[in-house]
């Protein structure tokens, strides 16, 4: 490349910058997808958050080696793009071979090391991507707002592009395509900067064309041997017979002709019959549901009447049933078994519907096209809210992950399905005497079940039901429990039916109004009747006392803090850790602890990354090489606050809009794209704005606008959502974009304005400021999650607004 010659280009290589940013953001989202398939997704977030520290390292690197690199700008710029493209593929291929197993982390001291190897490897691509942007910012420091706007807009399109790509391609194929997009960016850069000889451009393009055709063996995901799918595949004769991929997950259908699947969770111990032949559905390698063979003969599916979830069918004959989460169809089958005439089912993942309806429709007895059954694609809560029907029974599938086995893993998944507000909504859509049935896995000591009782009681109270105690009934088997919630009281006849249902199946009645302790704990015996006592305490006036004393967090989840599955209480942690040798480990709430561990690591790494170059720069500064009269503390404070605040707002709004757009993925795609694109626009216009008001004045007005807009959203979003939630999906997307556009437009201004200021006064500080901003974003992503678990999304938004005010005060 030494022969390359070029005239000094007047404008920055903006298209390659946009393309690199797009690929980097797409890569980040894709990694979450890939790690969810091969590992467990909660570790995926940790790995990726820490890998993003590659941005921070890059700032340090350019700050230290910047001069040398800037002297060779073209070659350095191109090399970093090429290395980014290649490492994005190579590092993932290498990282998946690290034998990391989260479950061994407390016993095997090699495990933290494997984890470190994984995220160091994955930090590399982000390091190279960030180098290219930081180099461009430093090189063209008179054109910062333009570069930053291309960076942001590129990232916005990247987040949209990867979702579209994942709709048509498997994750591993998408990875190779991203790698080749990275190489294409190098070719674009070569062309943009008008470098010679032109054959290098052709070479990059050829490499980009070849990359997607890597040998198939390399594309195979190395899936953890402890995932359900890997375990099931070891059964003689078991094989995957259908595979579908979308941004929602990798769905596999598996058959086992030699040793049949027998998926019947919560089956009564008195059941005589086993389930008919089944196919199993796995989502990202986790067992999701089963498709049960059905030929119209109800005798064959009699096992479905032997589960706790069959209780509501025995109290009244419901005519109009809503199944939330159609899955493989067992909820529908259960309703068909009980001769329900009108069944409505909602399923989020259209691919699962297609599999059960079309590909395996014959096997499943065409239940999805049965004249009595209506299947809808969508989110259950959104469907209920938008529906004008009233149901005799709303049946929720067993709450939480498949099986009680993955305790604590879902602690940080937002779930708007099980908040107080959600239950209020469901109850409003019940016909007179109708009933809402929600089942849970039985965990010891009880967690989900009691939290559900607390949630239901609160929802009933908020709906002004006169006596919530009379509206609840709870039963449990050894594996599942089912809670029935009504708007009216259970009659003596209803209670007699509940008792009869339970005694026939050896289930225990846990609660109905007026039940005595003698009736509890008869068949599935616990040393103390925790379920009975807990429910009684929660429905008493001693609820708050009980919630405080309980060692797990069983306070109801709300729309502002929708973490139903987070049961963590800090004060219980020492006791659990102490009982490691006595099998106490499963009581740990992994999801939350991992988040905290990530935060600690990110803080430590960021400190090292920010303080280290600061010291180095100080030593240099004594040479009076650059003395723009700029306070480094102000630079640090400004870029740190802006980095934190930007992501705080972005994340809080993504989470808040899940409720409106019905799926975390849609919310993330729409919000990221809109936020980044309009912030890019804001950056683009910031220069003109600054010419009028001066940079400091422009930043101040932007901050004021952000605070006003943010506060008004805090107040208006909730009523706005409930008023508009019934609109069609596309309209809701448009509204969401329009809502965040003005806010993100303002959010795009402070960063480039301040960076331009730094560029004027002390250009050597540009990479460092970029690095500070990168580290702040990493910390802020994790911190936002911790804050929203404890204080709710509104608190995160308020914190972000405060940070913008602080930033404005520290404008360099």
């Amino acid at each position, binding site marked *: 490349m030494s022969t390359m010659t070029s005239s000094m280009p007047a404008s920055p290589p903006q298209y390659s910058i946009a393309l690199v940013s797009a690929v980097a953001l797409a890569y980040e989202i894709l990694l979450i997808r890939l790690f969810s398939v091969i590992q467990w997704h909660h570790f995926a977030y940790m790995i990726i958050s820490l890998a993003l520290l590659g941005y921070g390292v890059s700032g340090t690197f350019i700050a230290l080696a910047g001069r040398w690199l800037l002297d060779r700008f073209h070659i350095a710029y191109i090399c970093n793009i090429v290395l980014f493209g290649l490492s994005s593929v190579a590092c993932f291929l290498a990282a998946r071979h690290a034998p990391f*197993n989260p*479950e*061994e982390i407390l*016993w095997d001291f090699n495990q933290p090391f494997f984890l470190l190897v994984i995220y160091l490897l994955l930090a590399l691509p982000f390091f190279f991507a960030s180098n290219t942007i930081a180099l461009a910012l430093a090189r063209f420091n008179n054109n910062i707002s333009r570069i930053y706007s291309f960076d942001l807009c590129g990232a916005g399109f990247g987040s949209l592009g990867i979702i579209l790509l994942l709709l048509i391609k498997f994750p591993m194929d998408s990875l190779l395509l991203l790698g080749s997009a990275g190489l294409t960016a190098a070719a674009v850069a070569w062309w943009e900067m008008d470098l010679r000889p032109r054959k290098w451009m052709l070479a990059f393009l050829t490499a980009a064309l070849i990359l997607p055709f890597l040998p198939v063996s390399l594309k195979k995901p190395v899936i953890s*041997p*402890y995932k359900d799918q*890997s*375990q099931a595949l*070891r*059964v*003689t004769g078991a094989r995957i017979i259908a595979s579908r991929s979308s941004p929602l997950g990798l769905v596999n259908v598996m058959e086992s002709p*030699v*040793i049949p699947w*027998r*998926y*019947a*969770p*919560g*089956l009564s*111990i*008195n*059941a*005589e*019959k*086993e389930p008919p032949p089944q196919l199993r559905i796995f989502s990202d390698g986790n067992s999701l549901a089963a498709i049960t063979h059905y030929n119209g003969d109800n005798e064959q599916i009699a096992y479905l009447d032997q589960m706790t979830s069959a209780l509501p069918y025995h109290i009244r004959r419901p005519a109009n049933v809503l199944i939330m989460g159609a899955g493989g169809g067992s909820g529908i089958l259960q309703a068909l078994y009980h001769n329900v005439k009108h069944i409505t089912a909602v399923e989020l993942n259209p691919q699962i519907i297609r599999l059960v309806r079309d590909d395996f429709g014959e096997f499943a007895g065409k239940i999805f096209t049965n004249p009595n059954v209506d299947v809808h694609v969508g989110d259950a809560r959104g469907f209920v809210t938008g529906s004008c029907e009233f149901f005799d029974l709303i049946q929720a599938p067993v709450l939480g992950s498949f*099986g*009680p*086995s*993955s*305790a604590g893993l879902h602690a940080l998944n937002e779930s708007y399905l099980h908040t107080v507000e959600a239950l209020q909504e469901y109850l409003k859509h019940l016909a007179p005497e109708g009933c809402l049935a929600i089942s849970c896995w*039985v*965990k*010891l*000591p*009880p967690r989900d079940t009691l939290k559900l009782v607390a949630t239901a009681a609160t929802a009933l109270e908020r709906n002004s039901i006169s006596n919530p105690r009379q509206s609840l009934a709870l039963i449990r088997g*050894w*594996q599942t429990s089912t809670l029935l919630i009504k708007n009216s009281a259970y009659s003596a006849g209803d209670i007699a039916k509940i008792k009869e249902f339970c005694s026939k199946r*050896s289930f225990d009645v846990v609660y109905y109004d007026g039940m005595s302790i003698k009736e509890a704990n008869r*068949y*599935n*015996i*616990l*040393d103390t009747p*925790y379920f009975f006592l807990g429910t009684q305490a929660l429905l008493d006036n001693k609820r708050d006392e*009980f919630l405080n*004393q*309980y*060692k*797990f967090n069983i306070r109801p989840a709300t729309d502002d803090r929708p973490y139903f599955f987070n049961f963590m209480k800090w*004060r219980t942690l020492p*006791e*659990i850790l102490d*009982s490691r*040798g*006595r*099998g*106490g*480990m*499963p*009581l740990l709430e992994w999801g939350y602890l991992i988040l905290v561990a990530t935060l600690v690591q990110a803080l430590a790494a960021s400190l090292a990354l920010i303080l280290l170059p600061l010291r180095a720069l100080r030593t240099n500064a004594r040479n009076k090489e650059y003395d723009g009269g700029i306070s480094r503390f102000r630079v640090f404070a400004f870029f740190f606050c802006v980095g934190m605040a930007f992501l705080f707002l972005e994340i809080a709004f993504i989470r808040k809009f899940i409720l409106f757009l019905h799926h975390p993925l849609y919310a993330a795609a729409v919000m990221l794209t809109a936020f980044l694109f309009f912030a890019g626009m804001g950056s683009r216009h910031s220069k003109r704005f600054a010419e009028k008001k001066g940079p400091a004045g422009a930043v101040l007005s932007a901050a004021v606008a952000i605070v006003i807009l943010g506060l008004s959203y805090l107040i208006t979003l909730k009523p706005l959502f409930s008023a508009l939630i019934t609109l069609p999906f596309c309209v809701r997307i448009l509204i969401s974009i329009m809502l965040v556009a003005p806010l993100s437009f303002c959010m795009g201004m402070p960063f480039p304005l301040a960076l331009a200021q730094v560029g004027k006064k002390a250009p050597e500080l540009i990479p460092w400021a970029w690095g500070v901003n990168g580290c702040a974003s990493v910390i802020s992503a994790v911190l936002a999650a911790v804050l929203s678990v404890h204080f709710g999304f509104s608190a995160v938004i308020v914190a972000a607004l405060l940070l913008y005010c602080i930033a404005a005060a520290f404008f360099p």
Partner: protein
Amino acid sequence: MTLIKSNVIDYQAFNTGVLMRSTIIFTIITFIFFCLLPCLQARADDMFAKARRQMIQAIEENVRETARRLDRKSLDPKVMSALATVPRHEFVPASYRRFAYENRPLPIGHGQTISQPYIVAIMTDLLNIGKEDQVLEIGTGSGYQAAILGKLVKTVFTIEIVKPLAEQARKRLAKLGYDNVEVRQGDGYYGWEEHAPFDAVIVTAAASHIPPPLIRQLKPGGRMIIPVGTRFMVQQLVLIEKNNSGKVTTKQLLPVMFVPLTGGH
């Protein structure tokens, strides 16, 4: 030229000398090694025996702390002596042998694990088994649990679904002399009809429900135990009891002593 040539010859002579000497040294070392091998083996056995004693102490300590929950002060001494004699290190892959007597679960390949010794002790103890009993195990895995049971009862029938694991366990148990353990590869759902009924059943394989055939193959007065959880962590134990009149009840136990209310008893 000559110089070079002589050099070459010298070099060859030197080479031969070195070769001879190293052959002799190698032979001596090999000889010493083989002489020492039994001693080394004995020393390794010693080490393992010591480690095993420490493991027993750890289990006993942990049991004392969990006593109330399990309704007993200590585990059956027979169970403890079985744990004290079965060489756990023979049941784990070579690379994990040094951890064999630590109170932790270990991977054994094929996505399977060998349970934490504390859990093995408790499950075995809860089965209430005697010298003349017949036990059925679903999920052989490494064969360690079967070996422990083999020390305590008349015969153990064990079924493993993963073929290579079943074969490995069969060979291993035969080699170690557990003649009263019979291993079969296949589906455990229907139990082992020819040898039914059983005094005790232990289901260590993941089950979405309790297979009705297994309940049928349980003798009146018999007990069945099912650990619920993941490969590495047992969350709770389900104990199924069939009384003398054939009525079935389940008990759910937490392996660990844990009172969910602060200020509770």
